[in-house]
């Protein structure tokens, strides 16, 4: 994993500021983030790749919202990532309003973030934790839960909540090795 999440703290600062000014959650262009990677005040950061026209990602919206409200108070930050050359701020706002996703968003127009994080579909999530050397470390990439087994094959309720269990491990303070799962959804590339 070559990629270092170097822009993170400044980006967070931007979000915090804009959130305090506007009631709506913020949007930032992935490109606009410039800063170093020294410190982060959060225990982990979750990026959820999503897309307005992906039915599978949309069905996860209520669950994403409930995870965010449960874990953000425990020191974990959440971002939505829209990796799509045609995405606009307006589309993101409409999408977040329709699906009641009051979560800061990143416009990844060139899909660089998706490429570097290794995300290939929506919905898919990546989880970073601050590491000793001051850089962020990727601990999880993959599905949010096992609700979908394949296109058209979804369970009545998920029986494995992958993202949630990673976050619980992080909060317990145990060392979390990198793991990944295959996410089912709409392709980013």
């Amino acid at each position, binding site marked *: 994993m070559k990629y270092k999440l170097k822009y993170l703290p400044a980006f967070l600062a931007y979000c915090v500021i804009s959130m305090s000014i506007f009631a709506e959650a913020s949007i930032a262009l992935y490109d606009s983030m410039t800063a170093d990677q020294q410190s982060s005040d959060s225990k982990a950061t979750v990026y959820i790749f999503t897309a307005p*026209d*992906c*039915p599978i990602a*949309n*069905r*996860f*919206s*209520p*669950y994403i919202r409930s995870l965010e409200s449960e874990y953000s108070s425990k020191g974990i930050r959440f971002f939505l990532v829209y990796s799509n050359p045609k995405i606009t701020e307006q589309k993101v706002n409409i999408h977040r309003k*329709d*699906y*009641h996703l009051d979560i800061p968003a990143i416009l990844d127009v060139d899909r660089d973030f998706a490429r570097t994080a290794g995300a290939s579909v929506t919905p898919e999530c990546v989880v970073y934790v601050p590491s000793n050397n001051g850089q962020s470390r990727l601990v999880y990439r993959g599905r949010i839960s096992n609700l979908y*087994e*394949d*296109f*058209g*094959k*979804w*369970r*009545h*309720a998920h*029986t494995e909540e992958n993202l949630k269990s990673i976050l619980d491990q992080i909060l317990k303070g145990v060392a979390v090795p990198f793991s990944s799962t295959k996410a089912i959804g*709409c*392709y980013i*590339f």
Partner: protein
Amino acid sequence: MRWYICSLSIILIIGFKKPGFTAPTFVEDIAPIIYQNCIQCHHEGGIAPFSLMTYEEVSKRSRQITEVVESGFMPPWMPDSELTPALIGERFLSKEEIELLRNWHEESAPEGSSATPLTPPSITDEWQGGSPDLILEFPEPYILQEEGIDVYRNFVIPISVDEKRYVRRLELIPNTKLAIHHALITIDTTKRSRLQDSLDAGPGYEGMGIGSAEFPSGHFIGWTPGQVPYESYPGTSWAIEPDSDLVIQLHMLPTGKPEVISPQIGLYFSDEPPTQLSMTLQMRDFDIDIPAGEQNYWIKESMKIPVDVRAVGIYPHAHYLAKEMNIFVTMPDGNEKTLIYIPEWDFNWQSDYRYIEPITLPAGSQLNMHYRYDNSDENVFNPNYPAKRVVGGWKSTDEMGEVVVQVLVDSDQDLQLLQQSQIDYDMEAAGGDANYNYNIGIYLEQQGELQRALSFYLKATELDESFASAYYNVADIYRKLGDLHFALKYFNEALAVRQDFGMAEFEIAKIEFELGKTQGSVARLKSLIERYPDDLNIHLALARVLRHQDLISDAYALLMNKEIVFDKSAEFQIELAQIEIEKSIYQSAENRLNSILETNDSDKSTPGYLDITETLKAAALSELAQIFHSRDNLNEALNYIDGALEREPLQSSLYIRRLAILRSLEDTAEFSHTLIQLVSLSAQLGMHYQSILEELDSLEEKQTLASAYAQINDFEWAFKTADEIIKSGIYSEEALQPLKLKRREYLLESL
């Protein structure tokens, strides 16, 4: 041999190395496939989540498209098209088409160019059969929750037709993307669905059972996204009667945001009543009992086909655990013929299917249904995790195995034989299952076979002593058969096993009143009103009982108190007008009644009364006749009552009122004419000798009655009337002379 291998390798080279191979392009190769198979659903505003109309829209999803067509998920179509006879609206891609899509994706989805610009075919989300004769809409939209998996709800829509109509085509416009996965369309003539609706908060009521609603006799009607609209087989239109309700069951899938559900249903009428007999054959297994973890649980049902029939449609049905479905016919010669084979059942794409050409099932065939279920954790659709034992039932987490086949039948006699075969199957299948016996009861009741229905309901109560609706239906049949005491007994049983069974208690109150137990009835109705403060029918019933007790002011106060709540009910207005007439508040009564007559039900723009029917209009006219009668404006009164009779020629009270007006007018000729009409219709009117006699005032009128009976050659009652007159002692010999002669003739003849 060498030569052979050699030529094979040449083929291989041509096939796989593709010398001179040019990558497929969108304009030349891909667009035709997509336009032919995908865009009916995948267009802007269509039911699929995204459009696939333009190059850009298709190319950005080339990978997902390749995967979903290879897995067979898209285009959605469950039946195996090789084994199943050709079905209307069949959707599948050939192997070559799938391969083209894959190659195109692997070659980075080039657009290509073409001399003529690519124009996607135009697709409509409007009515496909032109504008419907009747459009039905939800009284109010339903808001589907954002999260969860399946929601089943039944919506009750009154059908506003003035007379019996025949439906040949039905379309549904979902008005929402994605959320509605499947709809079943049924008809309820009993009003029970309305009651059920009123007991459940929000529009419609929850559940997978359709209660007292039924598919139109001999048909089944479903809707799935993108399906070719329902069209009945030529000659098999189905009837809808005034005053019935369309009950539509929606299977909805939450999308992640709240969805407004308010589909429109368009009905297309035919001028012709059905000319072709049809019937639906049904097989179902309610004894399903699948152990946890079982991956190969089979059910097998079969039914004898005693006459030649032709299958035109098929509706296989199961819930989540079913995997494989095979419905086939064993011919008299032992050969087998597939009716439908579904190798991988997916409840989310359930549908009903219609054959392009009817399939002949000769007399002596056997219809078979073989379904396989997987109740293991491997089955993603398993609603239980970990897997647990699942039994048959109506809830979505129960399992079902059912098939409905619509068949054409050649003659009435064949139809009867086929119905008998269905009943034989049901009897044998029902065995010891309370639900099953209950369902057959419903089926028979709908066919008008009350006595037989009764025995199935009673069996259901024996098998399950706490089966409240079975007791209720037993009671209901006893009431229809005129046995009020038994009706009361069983309504009480229903209430005993389900204490909050408001409908049963309401029926008890009504029967108590009919049996003269007025006090008890009043107390019950009052307590029901406390529990259901906004129920119109309970208020009307109590008002009627109070009026009967001459507590006019109490009845008046009761209804006036609710005037605002029920202001959209014509029935309520009429009841109130009748009370006002009794209290001589004529002007207000007249206003109410006129407002009912002014309500034009075909004009939706003026919000009138929601329950307006011809019967209620007739009632309003009759009350107006009463008002004008009491004002001595007799000709006007006669006009009104005739208007009422025109709308409702089978309502005895209207004849009685007409007689009263004619009596005041002293028009004896017309009086006698009306009486003749009354006695000749007495069977249909449900008004017989004694009750007619009670309405007559004088000896002359009784003599007129005697001659009316004689006129229609009903001498039994003519003589009886004559006897009645003779008993009273004062009569005119002259008037009775012809009758006496006739009687002599009659007696002689019978000797």
